[in-house]
């Protein structure tokens, strides 16, 4: 942060306070030192003053005592004189002034430094000498004028008594003035002391005021700092006492959209979620637990999730309460809830997902084991959903799934678990349910699909296969239950779709076969185990081979040669039909190119390749065929595509413009045949709308044409229908000469069947083609082998 940064009280404030304290202490010490020093000096001065003043008294006493002795009385002027002399010495040089009997004790005095006093003391000592010298001369009857005077006094009086009195007065006078001088100095010292003490006292007062100011300022700064920290913090700080909330930081008010005052007392508690209120009351009253998640309601009636750390500071006299430091964790909680929801909910339909369903099954099995109550599971797989996705796109598929989820929700009972396991697979768990109820529910689910699903601009029929598995109570394993439901569902699909199947143990074995076959098919594709056989199409009138139908063959190392009827349904249901179909188309085209190159085929020869319903309903079939033709280098006129009427119409119904794709190929020369004609819609409308060159009358009619007049009539009708539309009619499955003759009579233009040839390898076809060039006669099947 630019500019002034906050320095906490512990650094700058402390420095200021310490500086002021040092000043205060220095002032106090100085004051004490001054007082002590001055008191000591005053005490010394007092002794000096006393001794100096005493010299005056002693001088006067000495004069009196001397005169008394001189008059014949008794006195001891010598002692007084000695006392005066010693005292005079002590006043100058320091030392002990002797005691005076009945008056003073001896006094210890220090050397005086004051020059005026010193001069007076020196003068005083001279005068004491002169006085005592004169006194001694008087008492000794000597001539006092002979006594040498040292103090520069000029006494004209000759009378010894007079001289003694004059010297006594001089001594007394100078002693008195010296004492006065010392007293004056003491007065000055005391005045100095008072002045200095006043100054020091003032300084101490200022220092105290500064100290108080610094402490208050520092405390204010610190308080403001922490208040600012608390106020601006996103953390919520609350303090609770016995009366309820005592303090709520600004962030609390911000979070709740309420004034702090509203939260005081019981105000905050009223915002707490009723379910959390007891826990909050416990925490704010007793300080436990230390960590507390709870919810509060803001003024917009939204619940906010808080996570609080609880600190019990009731024993801290500075707080005397329980402190809650809380954070608003609403976003985090919502995210967690969302993630949890995502983890267990199908995002498209809002139903339970596979994980949650599995968990529910586990729990249900635990309950079932305990209560011995039965349960049932339904596994529902939509029929034909892949085509919806492939042809209309995933958005349409998603809309359909949403709609179906709604319908299934309407079917399920309260307490049942409905889940989308993924893709077009739904599951339902029914607890406490026996077989009859489970079957009833499966039927209701199927009924819910009778009504086509409407997505914008289109009505789509949809079906489903349902596997039902029953658990009769007791221990169970969820994986096994789900697997059994899966097998039952698979059986329902195999059984013709649009139905339900209840699991029975045999299913596992049967379907295990189918599942194994699918796995082998995948391997076979990888290993190139698929081959193509060709069955000739004959013009019975000329005996000429006009074309061949390419048929897939699987040479399984373990199973031997596998017929299409045995693996095509599995390839269809598993989606492997795309790869197998593409492989057949590619190899047929390549083979035809070889025949053309070898000159064994006529220019109108056609190699017919079957397109399954799934292949047809996939976008871009025209492009894929064109790509194979281009890669093989085959003229499109040599290729024919056989499609069933059902698959052609089914794909068209799903909105895929099959007609346009077939027309595109047809325009380039590719022939189109309708396979198995007569078994489905047999709609003239379809024949008219689609670019068809040829119809193949299903073997179910041609094989019974000799014995069933209705089939003969149908065959005749189909042939005439073809001719009416300018198409050729091909009779499939011709195995006898009788059938051949009859279908020829009934109007079929071409024939195909074992009477002429079984499906055979390309090399055999080549040989046959070479032979037919010379011999346009039909052969019996056994001749061909």
């Amino acid at each position, binding site marked *: 942060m630019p500019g002034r940064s906050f320095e906490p009280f512990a650094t700058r404030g402390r420095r200021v306070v310490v500086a002021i304290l040092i000043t205060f202490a220095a002032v106090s010490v100085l004051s004490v030192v001054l007082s002590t020093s001055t008191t000591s000096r005053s005490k010394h001065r007092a002794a000096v003053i006393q001794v100096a003043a005493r010299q005056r008294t002693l001088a006067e006493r000495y004069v009196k005592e001397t005169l008394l002795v001189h008059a014949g009385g008794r006195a001891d002027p010598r002692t007084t004189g000695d006392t005066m002399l010693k005292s005079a010495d002590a006043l100058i040089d320091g030392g002990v002034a002797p005691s005076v009997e009945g008056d003073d004790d001896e006094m210890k005095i220090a050397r005086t430094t004051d020059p005026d006093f010193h001069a007076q003391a020196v003068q005083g000592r001279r005068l004491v000498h002169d006085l005592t010298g004169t006194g001694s001369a008087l008492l000794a009857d000597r001539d006092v004028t002979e006594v040498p005077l040292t103090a520069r006094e000029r006494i*004209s009086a000759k009378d010894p008594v007079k001289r003694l009195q*004059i010297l006594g*007065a001089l001594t007394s006078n100078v002693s008195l*003035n010296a004492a006065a001088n010392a007293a004056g100095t003491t007065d000055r010292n005391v005045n100095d002391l008072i002045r200095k003490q006043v100054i020091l006292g003032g300084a101490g007062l200022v220092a105290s005021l500064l100290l108080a100011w610094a402490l208050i300022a520092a405390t204010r700064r610190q308080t403001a700092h922490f208040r600012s920290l608390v106020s601006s913090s996103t953390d919520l700080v609350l303090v609770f006492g016995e009366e309820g909330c005592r303090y709520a930081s600004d962030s609390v008010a911000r979070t709740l959209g309420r004034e702090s005052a509203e939260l005081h007392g019981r105000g905050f508690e009223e915002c707490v979620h009723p379910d959390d209120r007891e826990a909050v009351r416990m925490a704010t009253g007793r300080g436990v637990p230390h960590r507390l998640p709870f919810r509060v309601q803001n003024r917009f009636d939204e619940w906010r999730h808080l996570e609080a750390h609880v600190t019990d500071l009731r024993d801290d006299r500075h707080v005397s309460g329980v402190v809650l430091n809380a954070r608003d964790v609403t976003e985090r909680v919502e995210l967690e809830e969302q993630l949890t929801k995502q983890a267990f909910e199908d995002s498209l339909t809002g139903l339970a997902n596979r994980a949650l369903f599995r968990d529910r099954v586990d729990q249900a099995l635990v309950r079932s084991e305990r209560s011995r109550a039965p349960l049932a599971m339904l596994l529902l797989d939509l029929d034909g959903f892949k085509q919806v996705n492939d042809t209309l796109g995933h958005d349409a598929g998603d809309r359909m799934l949403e709609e179906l989820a709604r319908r299934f929700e309407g079917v399920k009972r309260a307490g049942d678990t409905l889940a989308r396991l993924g893709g077009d697979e739904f599951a339902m768990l029914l607890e406490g349910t026996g077989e009859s109820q489970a079957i009833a529910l499966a039927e209701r689910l199927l009924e819910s699909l009778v009504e086509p699903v409407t997505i914008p601009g289109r009505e789509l029929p949809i079906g489903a296969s349902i596997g039902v598995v029953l658990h009769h109570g007791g221990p169970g394993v969820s994986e096994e239950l789900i697997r059994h439901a899966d097998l039952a569902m698979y059986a329902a699909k195999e059984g013709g779709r649009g139905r339900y199947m209840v699991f029975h143990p045999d299913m596992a074995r049967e379907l295990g076969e189918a599942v194994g076959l699918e796995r082998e098919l995948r391997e076979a594709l990888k290993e190139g185990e698929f081959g193509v056989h060709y069955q000739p199409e004959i013009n019975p009138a000329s005996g000429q081979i006009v074309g061949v139908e390419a048929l897939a063959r699987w040479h399984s190392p373990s199973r031997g040669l596998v017929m299409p009827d045995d693996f095509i349904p599995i390839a269809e249901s598993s989606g492997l039909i795309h790869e197998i179909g593409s492989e057949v188309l590619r190899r047929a085209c390549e083979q035809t190119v070889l025949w053309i190159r070898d000159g064994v085929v006529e220019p109108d020869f056609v190699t017919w390749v079957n397109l399954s319903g799934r292949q047809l309903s996939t976008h871009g079939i025209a492009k894929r065929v064109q790509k194979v033709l281009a890669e093989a280098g085959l003229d499109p006129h040599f290729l024919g595509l056989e499609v069933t009427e059902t698959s052609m119409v089914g794909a068209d119904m799903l909105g895929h413009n099959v007609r346009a794709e077939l027309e595109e190929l047809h325009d380039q020369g590719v022939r189109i045949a309708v396979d198995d004609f007569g078994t489905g819609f047999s709609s003239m409308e379809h024949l008219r709308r689609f670019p068809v060159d040829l119809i193949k009358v299903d073997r179910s009619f041609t094989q019974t044409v000799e014995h069933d007049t209705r089939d003969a009539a149908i065959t005749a009708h189909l042939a005439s229908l073809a001719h009416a539309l300018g198409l050729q009619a091909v009779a499939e499955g011709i195995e006898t000469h009788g059938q051949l003759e009859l279908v020829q009579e009934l109007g079929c233009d071409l024939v195909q069947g074992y009477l002429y040839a079984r499906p055979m390898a390309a090399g055999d076809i080549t040989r046959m083609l070479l032979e037919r060039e010379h011999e346009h006669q039909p052969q019996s099947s056994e001749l061909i082998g």
Partner: protein
Amino acid sequence: MLAISGCGSSADSGHSNKEVEVWVKDFHIKAPKHVPAGDVTFEMYNRGPDHHELIVIRDDGRRLPLRGDDLTVDEDGLGPAVAGALEPEPPGEHLVSMRLKRGDYWLICNMAGHYMGGMRTRVVAG
């Protein structure tokens, strides 16, 4: 510096006053023999060590009377003869102004024993 007026002395130590330096110390007074008459300011320089007075007394030819102690001059008894006085002063410089008529004057220190101890001198004013 303190100006003290004694009897007959002028309150004004003014500019027109003639100045007379008097030096005093234990136990001498040193002054010029002749001092001006009229308004005079005595500048007393006390060289100590003791305190001293400066009392200017007209000399009418008689001995100065003593008090009962026989040690100090009886200033009260002199009446108007006292022309001016400086009270006892510590060492330092002190002033006193007075009007002197022509004639003789005693300059004395009348602290106990000082006059008798030698602190007296006679000057002639005019």
